[in-house]
């Protein structure tokens, strides 16, 4: 059994790790819902939210007034949560010296000065933070930027199903200037400025969906790469290489029980849509990097595929291509490493460099991107509250050049990300939470 499948089980959290409110002796009666003061208060305390709490709107509840209903507006006895942003995806604009990171924990996009660094254990103050009800951001995954147009692109994964575009100067509770419906389980984003197109990776349907860069609303995709010949398996990171006109994809390798219907289909929504392929049974294929021509459409085989035991690929979450030095960087979350491959490598190829080890500070990386102009490599850690900056050619167990913290050093990272279930282990008196 591949080790990566076991890593799918996340979290085994002890009680009371972040208790912030004791149980109330008295309980207010059941009443109409009002603003979630706690969520706002917590985020405002951490400087995550500057907006005033919106006015509460009454909700017409079902005819419960005559019913005898136990419980009610019960305060929790204990709560575990991470009050700080978590880092997911990272994008660097070397022209304007800005760095953007997505934050699925607080539903936000934060920007920093590219040269910012924590001097010690303190957090770095972001330049901007886009978050709040007007943003529409939900379980935000990828972020990328168009430095020429000074636009920020983000996409929601699992809940949300939208790509949103904000101007560079957006801050606080800002509305997107464009919002595009994308398939359910979208993850990665990459812009090809030459073709004026944007590629979106989609996990479960195992597809790469290409839109016009200025697509908006319910605009349909220009084309899809999809089908059993593509070798796509639970794709995550995607990079649209404008110089070589190629789409480079990082695949986890998971294949669900139905074969993908080949070719372009209607974008699938949760609970319906899309076309259903034959029932073939699920598989855990080896993780891979697959490469397609920029104009590829339908059920096409990759022009190159990096896959096999020498690659060390394990939960490849994000991918970046340095077209000047012909290298591919992979955020390899499964073993907390960054793996660098030759851009034209194929087959069971070993990486040309690996950044890994205790000194690197790499912990569950979700994001990686080259900053070619400044000869640097950025890594976004999901496993703690840091983004790391390495020399582009860094290798082995080396310390980063700079660390950007978004929480004081040592702050625990709970790791919840759109959690959907919980179980009680009565033997160990523990709670189990899958992400």
């Amino acid at each position, binding site marked *: 059994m591949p080790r990566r499948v076991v890593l799918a089980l996340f979290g085994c959290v002890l009680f009371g790790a972040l208790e912030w409110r004791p149980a109330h002796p008295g309980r207010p009666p059941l009443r109409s819902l009002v603003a979630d003061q706690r969520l706002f208060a917590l985020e405002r305390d951490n400087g995550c939210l500057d907006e005033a709490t919106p006015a509460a709107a009454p909700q017409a509840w079902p005819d419960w007034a005559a019913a005898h209903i136990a419980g*009610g507006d019960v305060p929790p*006895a204990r709560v575990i949560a991470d009050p700080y942003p978590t880092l997911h995806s990272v994008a660097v604009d070397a022209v304007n010296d800005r760095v953007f990171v997505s934050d699925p924990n607080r539903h936000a996009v934060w920007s920093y000065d590219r040269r910012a660094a924590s001097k010690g254990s303190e957090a770095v103050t972001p330049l901007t933070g886009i978050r709040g009800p007007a943003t529409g951001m939900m379980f935000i995954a990828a972020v990328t930027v168009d430095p020429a147009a000074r636009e920020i692109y983000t996409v929601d994964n699992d809940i949300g*199903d939208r790509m949103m575009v904000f101007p560079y100067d957006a801050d606080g509770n800002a509305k997107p200037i464009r919002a595009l419906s994308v398939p359910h389980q979208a993850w990665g984003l990459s812009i090809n400025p030459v073709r004026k197109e944007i590629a979106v990776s989609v996990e479960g349907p195992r597809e790469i969906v290409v839109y016009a860069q200025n697509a908006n609303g319910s605009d349909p995709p220009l084309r899809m790469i999809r089908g059993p010949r593509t070798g796509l398996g639970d794709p995550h990171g995607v990079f649209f290489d404008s110089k070589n006109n190629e789409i480079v994809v990082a695949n986890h390798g998971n294949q669900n029980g139905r074969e993908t219907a080949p070719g372009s289909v209607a974008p699938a929504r949760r609970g319906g849509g899309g076309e259903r392929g034959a029932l*073939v049974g699920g598989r855990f294929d080896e993780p891979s990097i697959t490469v397609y021509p920029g104009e590829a459409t339908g059920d096409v085989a990759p022009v190159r595929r990096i896959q096999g035991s020498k690659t060390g690929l394990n939960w490849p979450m994000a991918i970046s291509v340095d077209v000047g030095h012909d290298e591919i960087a992979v955020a390899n979350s499964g073993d907390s490493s960054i793996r660098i491959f030759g851009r034209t490598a194929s087959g069971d190829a070993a990486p040309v460099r690996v950044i890994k080890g205790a000194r690197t500070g790499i912990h569950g990386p979700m994001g990686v991107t080259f900053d070619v102009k400044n000869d640097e490599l950025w890594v976004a850690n999901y496993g703690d509250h840091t983004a790391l900056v390495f020399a582009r050619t860094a290798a082995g167990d080396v310390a980063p050049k700079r660390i950007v913290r978004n929480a004081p050093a040592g702050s625990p990272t709970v790791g919840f990300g759109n959690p*959907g279930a919980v*179980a009680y282990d009565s033997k160990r008196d523990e709670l189990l939470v899958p992400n």
Partner: protein
Amino acid sequence: MHGIFYDPKHDEIVVPVALGGAVLTLPGGADGGAPPLRVLQGSATGLVQPDTLYVDVAHDEMIVDSGDDSVLVFARTATGNAPPLRKLGGPKTQIRNIYGMSVDSVHNLIVIANRVDLGGRESSDGILIFNRTDSGDVAPRAVIAGPRTGIIKIRQVVVDEERGQIFATIKNNFENYEASAERPSPWNPDKTGFIGVWSINDNGNVPPRGVIKGPATGLVWPAGVAINPKDHEVYTIDSVSNALFMFRTPELFKKPSPVNDGAR
């Protein structure tokens, strides 16, 4: 992963892997890269994209969402490409998108959290209750659904077998929408979710017997629910605030009255 089960008798953790069409069983104390004890996967299993599951320890069976609008029942220790013992699905069952499942081995019932999206915030979600050994395309013996239930976007369900109660998480919002539609927002105070409690004998468009609901709860979109009857505690994980809440609610661990509605 949107499901998980802890089997206290055999000290095992069982999880569905939707993206791999599989069910993994791990040791109860598994940590890090511990390998699974068993992997159920393959074309004979009927597993497509399983989101949730439950282990019926009393009858040594495993109840799994196929990810294809049906319930598959396997031997608890099924492994490899093993076919299900029973399959429950079809138009009479009303089973559509399964978001949670539980077994009441005392009353010999299967409880399904079922979603039927009708577009926007509209849905016909509910709790479907079947006889434990039902198979094929059979009607549920009870359906808890309708406007008086307050069920909009149901998620996980768990049964307190001793008292005959169903605990369900209700997100009370919608997740998918067109770009032009109103945006579901984690900050929208009008549409936060709750935990509802029904009797295992309830049927129809009936209010919950108990709730955890309101601003003091801190809940936004509660997704998962687990109970600890011994300590009278209810646990829920919230998919928007990314927080784990623990409530001590003795009043929710009382045997419900036999009255179905009206007097409540």
